[in-house]
């Protein structure tokens, strides 16, 4: 597992290993043996690094680590490159809303040219005695809503289309 740390504007890829003797942090083309032990006080630790014992205070949030060291506070932003990448993919790049099953359009809340936000309702359809709300898969501009309320449609008919995203 890798981490991308941001310290003072610098992006530093980091990973951790463990030799029989203890942890080794790999960063900036170096491998440095280190250990972190609790000490007196809330958030107080002693970092053993290259023969030095460094007292520091530390607090960890979801996305950052805050360290009080030698009288100064530092904020280290942490990202898991994997998390970021995995989230990036879902649902992106979809332009057309395709009918999941045949049915009838109940209502249409947007028209061509309207700017919509991701998740905003585009139209409501009825099928198999159930009403389903279809919403925008991404931010964008509506290009087309081919069916009017009351009109029927078939499986996989395009019910709404967003204008293609500009790069």
């Amino acid at each position, binding site marked *: *597992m890798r*981490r991308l*740390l941001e*310290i*003072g*504007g*610098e992006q*530093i890829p*980091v*990973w*951790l*290993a*463990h*030799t*029989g003797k203890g*942890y080794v*942090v790999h*960063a*900036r083309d*170096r491998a*440095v043996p*280190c*250990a*972190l032990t609790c000490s007196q*006080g*809330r*958030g107080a*630790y002693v*970092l053993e*690094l*290259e023969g030095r014992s*460094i007292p*520091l*205070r*530390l*607090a*960890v*949030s979801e996305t*950052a*680590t*805050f*360290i*009080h*060291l*030698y*009288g*100064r*506070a*530092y*904020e*280290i932003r*942490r990202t*898991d490159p994997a998390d970021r990448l995995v989230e990036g993919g879902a649902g992106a790049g979809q332009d057309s809303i395709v009918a999941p099953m045949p049915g009838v359009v109940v209502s249409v809340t947007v028209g061509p040219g309207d700017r919509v936000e991701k998740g905003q309702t585009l139209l409501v359809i009825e099928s198999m005695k159930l009403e389903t709300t279809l919403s925008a898969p991404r931010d964008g501009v509506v290009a087309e809503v081919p069916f009017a309320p009351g009109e029927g449609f078939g499986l996989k008919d395009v019910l709404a289309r967003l204008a293609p995203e500009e790069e």
Partner: protein
Amino acid sequence: MHPGYGFLAENAAFVRALNAAGITFVGPTEDVIDLMGDKVRARAFVAERGFPVAPAAIEDDDPASFVERARAVGYPLLIKPSAGGGGKGMRVVREDAALEAEIETARREGKRYFGDGRLFVERYIERPRHIEVQVMGDGCGNVVHCWERECSIQRRFQKIIEETPSPALSPEQRTEICETAAGIARAVNYRGAGTVEFIYAPDGAFYFLEMNTRLQVEHPVTEMVTGIDLVAEQLRIAAGGGLSHAQAEIRQTGHAIELRICAEDAFADFRPAIGEVLLVEEPQGAGVRVDSGILEGGKVTTDFDPMLAKLIVHGSDRAGAIARARAAVQGYVILGVTTNTGYLDAILAHPRFLSGDVSTGFLAEEAAVLTARGEDVTDILVAATALSDGRLVRAVDEIPEMHRLMGAWRN
């Protein structure tokens, strides 16, 4: 009703509403608030009574004689659009030959930016200090001052370190500037706590800038050296109890410094920082006072002023106060939101600050030094961050021992 030192403290309409409701306002009368809230009127009022104001000329007073009056202000001078703000269209003129051309340029810029070409000029003070004086009046003509505060350490026109006494003033100047402030307060028959601000030029000249008709953020330094509780004093005056001290009884003892702890990134143009306060540990000990508005678990958002707390220290002399301030700010642990503690410490350590050689431009002039990266502690930060990252440590621990120990072996 004590209005604190926020927006309501200088709002005359608020005071009128309180009066109408029969509630006593802790502060001056609405007339004084109105007068001092209008910069032009306040300046004219002070000048008319013989107190020093920076030489200036306002075009509107008599457009025909504007250039002549501007010349009389003396050089260097600053041309400003009447309708302006934010530094737009301002021009510094250092010699007479350039004056008329610069006035024309400034007029064109004023028209372009503000649709209004009217101008005014004032004396341009180079390397000015900001020195202010705490005054207390009983509203019955009695006014005392509680000495000065030096507030020249400013970023984005906002103070972040204040101290008293000012290292710039000789005893004679100190008396003169403080008496001037008390005189101005007396002239408006001031009631309650107020502050008279001055621009102080390197040659020792000082000019009235404005009067704040309320308690100031930096009032604790005054309390630390005088031993007077200014808020108690405000309440006493509001209750009709008058002043508790005669001028001769108010003495400056030792030296006090206030540091404003702000949620901001001093290394990124003082961009306000947000976050959740995860851990707070305030410095303690003799001569250390913390006025704080944060608790662990609290959220810091941009909805409010970035100031989180004030750290005030007192020492027997300036060097002692600085040493104590440094120790205190270094020991002030605030984790979860970026603060300016490291930056404040860098200011305290700067040779020009140590020698008292500062002006309102100090932080901008020394920005490179003050925001220089110190000793490279990246390795320490990286190691501590990695080892305190539970998911990362677990991921390593989950690798079977043998494979962990083999490392990145390849055949």
